[in-house]
């Protein structure tokens, strides 16, 4: 079964441990500039949103690549760059709607999330579970449950308010 990263940004504390372990896992160094995941921050409002690759079905990065360097992993379903073929034109970077295809000036290479080959380290280290690794077809179910919870809490609150009036 294909699994994906499910991000619930509301839970994110903004600690950036995910960025750290991502770069250590892939490159053996600490450097967020090499991380496949990046936490976008609105510090003045206390809002943090981790952003990573969506492993799109009809993937723009794969479609745009002029030398067909991007392909899908048969088993795990993520998209991966073959550096033997890649010419570093960065068309994929330009076209990705999420900014999830990165380019690093240190090795002059594009790079993206590869789900750590099936054991995503960001998921493993994020104690607050802002990132989870779930079956692709279950994502909406989790979201439904979350939303339902909020709805019922709101209803309970409303009822309590009415009773108090």
């Amino acid at each position, binding site marked *: 079964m294909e699994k994906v990263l499910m991000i619930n940004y509301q839970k994110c504390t903004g600690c950036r441990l995910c960025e750290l372990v991502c770069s250590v896992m892939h490159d053996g160094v600490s*450097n967020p500039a090499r991380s496949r995941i990046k936490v976008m921050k609105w510090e003045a409002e206390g809002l943090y949103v981790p952003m990573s690759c969506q492993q799109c079905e009809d993937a723009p990065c794969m479609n745009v690549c002029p030398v067909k360097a991007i392909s899908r992993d048969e088993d795990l379903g993520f998209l991966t760059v073959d550096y033997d073929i890649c010419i570093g034109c960065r068309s994929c970077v330009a076209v990705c709607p999420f900014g999830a295809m990165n380019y690093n000036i240190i090795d002059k290479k594009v790079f993206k999330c590869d789900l750590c080959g099936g054991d995503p380290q960001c998921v493993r280290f994020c104690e607050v579970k802002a990132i989870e690794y779930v079956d692709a077809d279950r994502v909406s179910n989790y979201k439904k449950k979350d939303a339902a919870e909020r709805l019922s809490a709101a209803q309970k609150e409303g009822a309590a308010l009415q009773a108090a009036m």
Partner: protein
Amino acid sequence: MALNRKIAYIDLSTGDIEIKPIPLEVRKKFLGGRGLDAYLLLNHTEKGCDPLGPGNALIISAGILTATCASATARAHFMAKSPLTNLLGSANMGGFFAPELAWAGFHHLVIKGKAEKPVYIWIHNGEIEIRDAGQIWGKTTTDTQWAIRDELGDEDIKSAVIGPAGENLVTFANIMTGIKNSAGRTGMGCVMGSKNLKAVAVRGTMDIEIAHPVEALEYNKQFIDQITSAKVNQTQGTLGTPFIWGATNSWGGVRTRNFQYNQCEDADDIEPERIDEVCEETMGPYHMTGCFACQVHCRAQYKVPSGPLAGKYDEGPEYTSLGAFGGEPDCKNAETVFAGNHLVDQYGVDNLEIGSMISWAMELYELGILTNKDTDGLDLKFGNDEALLEMVERICFRKGWLGDTLADGGLPAAEKIGKNSFDYLIQVKGMNNLHSDERGTPALALNIATASRGSDHLRSRPAIDLYHLPEKVLRKIYSNPIPYDGPLSSEHTDYEGKAWEVYWQENCYMAVDCLGICKYHTVFLGATLPNFEDWPKVLYYNTGLEMSPEEIWDIAERCNNLERLFNLREGLKRDDLKKGDTLNHRYFDEPCRRGAPDIIGMSIDRKKFNKMLDEFYEHHNWDKNGVPTPKTLKRLGLDQEPSHLV
């Protein structure tokens, strides 16, 4: 590699910048962070230098582990001669500044001189530039950070900045980064202000090679599990440090009304649960945040719920803001705590010191030592929330006679106010005490009396002394990594064996500060958290440095002795009420009036305290006056200071 991070010497008078590597022998003697800062401070300042003069050195650093694959290594350290105490100035902050400094290629900055006009320092991937700060001078701490990002066009820049309090040379102004992270104590922001230095902005994308990445990653996971499984950290992660204030208040260990009482009564509106409620109401169910790579996330997010500042976003309030704007001035309204916390964060001033100074003034006012004339008509009584917040403004902007006087700090203010005002100042070495009461806990009293930066809980507090742990457990902790078979007591009211606990904690916290780790990740509030035996692995996997627990202990001891040497050089004397290792007379003469049965009626026994202090010196191999003996200095390799290795 962490070990290839450099030191930069920056002279703001001449504009000269020199960049040097950190030799391995220096690492092996002082590791990094606070320890190496102490060495640099002792070596780069002259005896008796003016804290606000160009000769004072402001030292900024990251820990040796900062931004490596280890847990909670976000800490930045700041050192200089303190304008508040005229002794060691030293402060530590979390956030995201220190990791960025390390990614930018540096571990230590030594800033001397004084710029002619306001400037800020811009550090980017190994390069350093001094830039004009005319446009940002006058701005609040957060506006300063956003303005620098705008000017340089990079949203990922992290800055350590001062606010108006630092510019106005309030002697307890702090240095801040982000919304809340503060290097709070000893007036490091005032030193920045005196150098016309508004900010240090950093941005880095340079690799820090991890010596053994696979092992580092696995060990980090284990480390984090150890840290997050501690109950105290789980509570920190939901209620933040207000939970400590609440717990301490319930048994009678906080200061109220400038130390007249040890418990704040009818404080429901500022209990941790109430604070948490406001945070949840204004920021939703997930409202905790934290520092770089930390899984404790002890900081709450909130918006001021009501009043003139309603809707303003901030983080905290932590233990100290609850003390400063709640318990201590006996103002028991959540709104005041949230508002006060926001003001100090924006103005860049130490919440602890300003809260204590105002409460001291309140007692002086109620005693008639300060009059309506002195306060310009302000009714500065305990419990007057508006007067409290008004005084924050007056101090930070040095408005009116009293605001200006208090902004100078406790000792000069006591001299200016005169009468017997000094007797009511709850300070050690010129710095006010945390809003806690140590009369029922001799170990904690010894800790604040001997802390190297003046009254302080983060230098050597054996907080676990309050948990009544079985002696066996205490012995396991306190007889490692070096053997100890003297007395230890599980009873917090005892004096026996406490000097050893304080001595051990002093080395433990120094080690943590050299490594760059947050204290919630060691034996501070939790007995099961990592300590000496765990650090060699983290150090080895991340930096390749091989060190035994004993060697890390020795380094910590060496660095504590460096701080001692600095303080002695600047005039520390054992029994000096203003510059010594002793306490305000109230600790000895006034028993606790409130609290649990084991607290009520307690005060510190002067004779026993002195014996404890003797023992503390003996553990250090210092003489009766607290001066390291030549033999001790020789053993630690400090007999040639200043030795100018870097």
